[in-house]
């Protein structure tokens, strides 16, 4: 998954390309995309057999 690209597309639609390209938005976008990617890729199964399913 390319979280950055997906999130940026949503932002451009919501804010317009100019605002989406402003440095503080771009910085927030990069940080959020990195967190999103990590959350998407992490396993829900805990190590060594803990049952963490909701």
């Amino acid at each position, binding site marked *: 998954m390319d979280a950055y690209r997906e999130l940026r597309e949503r932002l451009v639609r919501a804010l317009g390309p100019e605002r989406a390209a402003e440095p503080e938005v771009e910085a927030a976008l990069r940080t959020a995309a990195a967190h*999103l990617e990590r959350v998407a890729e992490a396993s829900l199964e805990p190590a060594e057999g803990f049952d963490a399913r909701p």
Partner: protein
Amino acid sequence: MPAPSAALHRLTAAEVSALIAARALSPVELVRSLLARVEATEPGLRAWETIDAERALAGARAAERTVGAPSAPLAGVPLGVKDVIDVAGLPTGCGFEPFRARPAATDAGVVARLRRAGATVLGKTTTTQFAFRDPPSTRNPWREDCSPGGSSTGSAVAVAAGHVPLALGTQTSGSVLRPAAFNGVTGFKPTFGRVGRRGVFPSAWSLDHVGVLARSVEDCRLFLAAAEGPDPGDPASTAPPTIPPGPDAALPPRLGLLVAALDGASAEVREHVLEAARRLEAEGARVEEVGSAPSLELMQAVQQVTMQCEMVDVHRRLRALHPDAYRPALRAYLEVGAELPGWAYVRAQRLRRRLALEMDRALDGHDALLLPTCVGVAPPSAAGTGDPSLQAPFSLLGLPALSLPGQPGRERLPLAIQLVGRRWDDLGLLAVAAWCEERLPRPGSPPGLD
């Protein structure tokens, strides 16, 4: 116990309380002395949003009349309150211009409880806007070119500068412990739900904690005793459940050194924590490396996704009403957060449960975890309020955490260690921290503020 002639601005809350109970110190004299100190040093520090001198003096006079009352363990203790927490009659500005002229009708639950315990509110301390990361103009008393941290910025600076012995803060990522570390004071965040948040402007409901900035671990214990308990105005607050007894305060603790937290820390911070571990071990503590703890990076990512989604909801209407009143980093953070997909929040909560179980396991067999509070000392002011990566995991998991200040390092800035306890074992954590505090060098006062 220090004589009342000792510097009043350096007394701990416990010392103030004991002196007042013994009628060796007048609460009015204390408040007058602290107000004079604020007047002399505040222009260079900017720790306060509002000073409420008249009502503080009235409160001190009332405290003088109730000296010795058994229900007043904080009788006459002056208190700073972070400006996201309601104090009746004063605006809760949140660093947000549209709120600056809007006085709160009633005290927040925690303020009301501390007042019942005898505390006297001196005023409202500065905060980053809505407790996010855009800094206020507050200065670090150790080095004015460096960040005082955030978001409980004014509370940490006011305690460090000798304006008040005790100040309330809030923590969603690292906003109590990090400013505590950067300013050389003690910071404590109890277990999630232990202290109610009615009257506290929310950042993120499932992460927000009320905590305290103080001059000693004992003062954190006094705060907790006065502040804890269920609050009908905060559905997340609850009475602590019965848990197995915590560590015996008289015995050396069993500490788990969270080695993964040292990897990303500066060499100076790493050496500080390892030196503290060596000293504590030499005094009898058992220090064991904890190798298999949940990933710090994943915990931070889960915490951030959770916080960003919840903050978007908190600010949904306000943003529409006052889009231009938001500081740049917060505005951008909310704009980006509004576009995060719903599955990300759901998945973050499922991961949160997994991480909580893994962290409980990492704490098994230890009275507390030992790690740095921050990855480095206070950064230059222009670089922001500092990195929350070592505090945010314990906000995410709701575990009690405390920052214990150490002596300044090579850059003349305080260093600190962090201790993290088991869920609801706040008293156990405070016992461990008191044991450590007795055996480690203290930071002293910021230069020129003795």
